[in-house]
């Protein structure tokens, strides 16, 4: 099973992915702040203004931010196809996405249509820039291996999610309640979670799990078929939902559940066979994320078997929390703790100033600091799930611990960035003055 060759010469400047990564924890903190300000009352419904605002700060400000930054880094390296104008694209997409996420949160929370209109404009621009650049890069990819295939589908799914979301936002900006709103509101999160997020995670996992955890490659049957199967199931599910066909809808849902559970099981199995036995924080984040994914699938199946379960607001909340905070955030953290030190090391090694002072990649973000974040994140997930069931008792502690977890992540990433900057700056002159640099 030949692995895709890495072509690191085409990698963009470190600022391109890092600006996304460094901003993401700030949005996590904002989401926590929104939850704190909202208190327990909004937890009676997943679609309350406070929860919608917090959810989108999470999905756009944290998750999509990191995924966009990662794609801009991975496209040239893994797909072997550079992103046109990477620096400008990265800067534009980053600023537009960040501003758009803020505007959307404000619009969802306060209900002011002018914020919604601003959000629509900003986010439409952000996605247009990013999708165009990514599509060009993916279309030109010289080798269409499994990760490229998954990325293409993920980008399509992002386009669908964004289109649905913008339509919803426009409807809300006009005072809400347009025809078909409920349908769009059901499809939008499905395409976002099971399309954009799940497909990109799968595609990236094919690379990073064998590479960073020294495992065998994913089984070819799975890696060839999973992304297309998930995408096709999502399409069928959407059509069946639109036309009100419960059986096709159920069958498609089961296919999605099977695909996601299969991915989780296959990854856990690979990781059990890793060559490096000592578990590091990244691996522990992976396990946490995959366990949460399996729990989400199990909860969904339970809801299918006993529809009465799904009536309680806690059900929808728990499902969303398991998928977003449990699965998506944990895996993002797992990957950041490998990718960021690697990028710092890589760019330092290519920089004439950094070459002589290369840190050990393990020192860029020490394990013990990542572990602090790991424990806070575990606590946050547990408390958030508890809050879904008992909001009055748990919303404040959950939001507080979630804030602390994001703070820990932010500090860890800033530490890595600061290290990079200091090393570069410390050797700014090619021939250092021997009096000050012995």
């Amino acid at each position, binding site marked *: *099973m*030949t*692995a895709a*060759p*890495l*072509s*690191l*010469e085409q990698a963009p400047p470190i600022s391109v992915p890092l600006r996304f990564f460094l901003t993401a924890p700030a949005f996590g903190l904002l989401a926590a702040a929104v939850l704190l300000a909202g208190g327990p009352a909004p937890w009676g419904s997943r679609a309350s203004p406070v929860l919608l605002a917090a959810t989108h700060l999470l999905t756009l400000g944290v998750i999509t931010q990191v995924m966009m930054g990662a794609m801009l880094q991975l496209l040239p390296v893994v797909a072997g196809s550079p992103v046109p104008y990477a620096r400008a694209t990265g800067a534009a997409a980053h600023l537009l996405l960040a501003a758009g996420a803020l505007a959307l949160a404000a619009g969802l929370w306060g209900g002011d249509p002018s914020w919604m209109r601003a959000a629509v404009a900003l986010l439409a621009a952000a996605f247009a820039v990013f999708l165009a650049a990514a599509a060009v890069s993916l279309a030109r990819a010289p080798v269409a291996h499994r990760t490229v295939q998954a990325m293409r589908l993920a980008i399509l799914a992002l386009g669908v999610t964004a289109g649905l979301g913008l339509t919803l936002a426009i409807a809300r900006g006009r005072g809400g309640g347009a025809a078909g709103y409920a349908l769009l509101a059901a499809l939008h999160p499905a395409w976002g979670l099971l399309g954009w997020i799940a497909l990109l995670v799968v595609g990236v996992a094919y690379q990073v799990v064998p*590479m*960073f*955890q*020294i495992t065998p490659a994913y089984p070819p049957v799975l890696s060839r078929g999973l992304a297309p199967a998930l995408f096709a199931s999502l399409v069928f599910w959407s059509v069946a939902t639109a036309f009100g066909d419960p059986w096709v809808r159920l069958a498609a849902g089961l296919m999605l559940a099977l695909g996601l559970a299969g991915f989780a099981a296959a990854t856990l199995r690979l990781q059990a066979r890793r*060559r*490096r036995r000592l578990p590091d924080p990244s691996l522990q984040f992976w396990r946490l994320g995959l366990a949460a994914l399996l729990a989400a699938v199990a909860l969904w199946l339970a809801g299918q078997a006993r529809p009465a379960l799904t009536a309680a607001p806690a059900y929808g909340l728990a499902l969303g929390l398991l998928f977003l905070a449990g699965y998506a955030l944990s895996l993002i953290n797992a990957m950041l703790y*490998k990718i960021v030190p*690697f990028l710092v*090391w*890589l760019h330092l*090694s*290519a920089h004439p100033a950094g070459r002589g002072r*290369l840190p*050990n*990649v393990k020192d860029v973000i020490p394990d013990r600091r990542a572990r602090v974040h790991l424990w806070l994140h575990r606590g946050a997930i547990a408390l958030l799930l508890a809050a879904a069931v008992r909001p009055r008792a748990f919303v404040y502690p959950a939001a507080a611990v979630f804030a602390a977890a994001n703070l820990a992540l932010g500090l860890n990433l800033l530490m890595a960035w600061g290290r990079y900057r200091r090393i570069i700056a410390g050797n700014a002159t090619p021939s250092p003055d021997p009096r000050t640099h012995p």
Partner: protein
Amino acid sequence: MTGERLLDVSALEPPEPLQRALAAVATLAPGEYLHMRHRREPLPLYPLLQERGYDHRTCRRGDGEYHVLIWRRDDPEAAARGRAWPQTEHRP
């Protein structure tokens, strides 16, 4: 004395293989070459070696077994040994 320094990085995660290889080549004695064993082809290493004044030769023995021989560009003895590998391979 075969002049070979063996470095097996197959069980290491990135960028440790690169890190160790770069550290090892910096301390090669005259006439010595580095024999780096890895489970993937270390493509990112090649440009880094080039700009530091090293030449290399890669042999692939099946999937997941790559042997990279590295020597200083201005060391003809090491270059000859590296190019002749595996004839010069140290057998225990």
